[in-house]
């Protein structure tokens, strides 16, 4: 299964035509495909672009979007921008950390949530704001944010595939 998944990605890489400046889009593609950037993806990309792996590692660690570890099923991004800060984002972050039992940057043990803060999501008039995957939620409080996360967790539990499939 993993081999086919890898093969799909390397096939995409095979179409790379040597256009300059494609490193970051290729890394974004890898992250979209695998959910993070595994070591072997760095090898593949190095192979087709002729950029040394160490240089690629340097690029990955510079940009906050890239992950070298697998992420949870659902990625939470709490906005820590100015308007959200002034509207009480700190309390929100504490509430989420408390609710999920993890720190910012961590993933829950059941693998459902990964928690990040983000500099500004650009939804300032709805502060404080949080994104769960691609959905944005605004006008939050400690109470409503817990409710949203519990709802997501319930959905994730329903969709869980039994191990013995």
């Amino acid at each position, binding site marked *: 299964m993993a081999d086919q998944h890898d093969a799909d990605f390397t096939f995409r890489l095979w179409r790379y035509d040597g256009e*300059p*400046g*494609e*490193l*970051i*889009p290729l*890394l*974004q593609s890898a992250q979209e495909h695998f959910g993070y950037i595994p070591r072997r993806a760095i090898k593949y990309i190095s192979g087709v672009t002729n*950029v040394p792996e160490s240089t690629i590692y*340097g*690029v990955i660690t*510079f*940009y*906050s*979007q*890239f992950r070298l570890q697998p992420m949870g099923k659902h990625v939470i991004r709490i906005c*820590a*921008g*100015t*308007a*959200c*800060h*002034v*509207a009480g984002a700190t*309390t*929100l972050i*504490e*509430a989420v950390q*408390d609710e999920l039992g993890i720190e910012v940057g961590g993933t829950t043990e059941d693998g459902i949530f990964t928690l990040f803060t*983000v*500099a*500004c*999501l*650009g*939804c*300032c*008039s*709805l*502060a404080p*704001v949080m994104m769960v995957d*691609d*959905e*944005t*939620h*605004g*006008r939050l*409080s*400690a*109470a409503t944010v*817990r409710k949203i996360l519990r709802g997501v967790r319930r959905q994730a539990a329903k969709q869980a595939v039994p191990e013995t499939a």
Partner: protein
Amino acid sequence: MSKIYVGMGTCGLSAGARDTYDTLKKLMGETPATAELHITGCIGMCYREPLVEIRDNGSRVIYGEVTPERAEEIYQRHVQNREIIDEYVVLREETAGEKTGSETEFITPQERIVLRNCGTIDPESIADYEAAGGYQGLRRALLEMKPAEIITEVKESGLRGRGGAGFPTGLKWSFAAGNQSDRKFVVCNADEGDPGAFMDRSVLEGDPHAVLEGMIICGRAIGADFGYIYCRAEYPLAIKRLNIAIASAREKGYLGKKILGTDFSFDVKIKQGAGAFVCGEETALFASIEGERGMPRIRPPFPAEKGLWQKPTNNNNVETYANIPWIMTHGAKAYAAFGTEKSRGTKVFALAGKVNHGGLAEVPMGMSIRDLVFKVGGGIKNNKRFKAVQMGGPSGGCIPEHLADTPVDFENIPQTGAIMGSGGMVVMDETTCMVDIARFFLDFTQAESCGKCTFCRVGTLRMLEILERITRGEGVPEDIETLRQLSVQIKESSLCGLGQTAPNPVLTTLKYFLDEYRAHIEDKKCPAKSCGALVDYVIDPEKCVGCTLCAKNCPVDAISGQPKQLHVIDQGKCVKCGKCISSCNFDAVYKD
């Protein structure tokens, strides 16, 4: 035939606009009326989202807070029975142009040039854009003008860069135009990283063709055949709408080879950012497009001479490009008629924070802060006192209430010590701690510093440590002088704008709110009752329902109380961790 427009920018969507749209779609399928359903971008009235506009024969009625239930009512009463529901109306415009409704104070002072189509057209329809006059500017520029004439027109409009630096746009274009090369590039900076700024996001989501048209005209003016739009990855909807716009522009022949039958060819590509604020700095942005770590490069040479891949490049902000088509169709004089002598035209501001009307407003340059906050912004939430407005993001500063009559433009705002910046305005009241705000911005710039320059990399960290100590009640009197010294050193020794302006929030708060610093350092008190370590945590007897959650979560057992009865915090035991506030579902714990 009624036309129904549902505001589906990111603000609208997070307020629930998708459910509203789906409800209306379902209703139209079940009980059809003579109506069309469209999406539109952000009209800027974010504080009343979700917004639905109904257009009948030239008259417009905009309804606010349109939940699915309200949508159903509006559909039945307005769309089917032609009855306007006054209590839900936020704005109404009759054919004659007169505006009525509860939000006229927000809309009337505005001059919408950049936002001309936001909230009025379907951003995913090039036909809508053309019907609103789109690509007429390109026609004029390409078919009736020489490149040098385009540049003259832009110069005479007085347009200055809207990304924050305010460099005269026409002059910038003339530099790239004047340099010879086999290849030149047009770059659009859509990285909008300033926390509190969302002007560019709304333009990209609500009127992406305006940006494309501006870029194509620039390409013609400077002799470039390719453009890049560097858009931050945190704006997925903007990227989606841009991709749709690019595809339809290519289809119609506005992008690609031999545009409009001339020998001018131009195409664009989107490059997504990867989460680095510093990539909003143009040389770091180029490095990122080239696939490298986003570290700034030394200037000179400037991008007009050696930019992307060392070729002459013109880089401008989204808002700057969005002005260009309007200037081409209406002329430089019409644009220069707005604004002040040295700051012509209009500016889009993102009002946020403790203001009643949080959203986007485009006003002529030169409006006072007071008018922006109280007229357009509708005043301070909950009738609290206006304390300061933060402008210019992490490069800017906090302007206190007593300077509220300062006109907002490129000349006057810098005299306060702040900068106008890209347009983010975060309004603060008496509950905002200015020392905490300085700490907040240093926390941000420290994390975003690329690390190249020692003084930025290490200096911002040292400043942050001092500010953190002060907000924890561990400040010492020498800290203030140390902060001032570090500020000067960091400003003078940094290669790029991030480092050169990182100390600004500290410098402006020291200038205008020194008493707050002194209170934190000498009295160990936070006058705004915000810094957790310097306040008491108290339970409000009016709100507490005795659910016992706070007591259960308190790490030092400082909270006592019987179930269903008022709980009390023992100040002697309290370690001020704040867990009680974040556990309470009834907002019953407050800081005093």
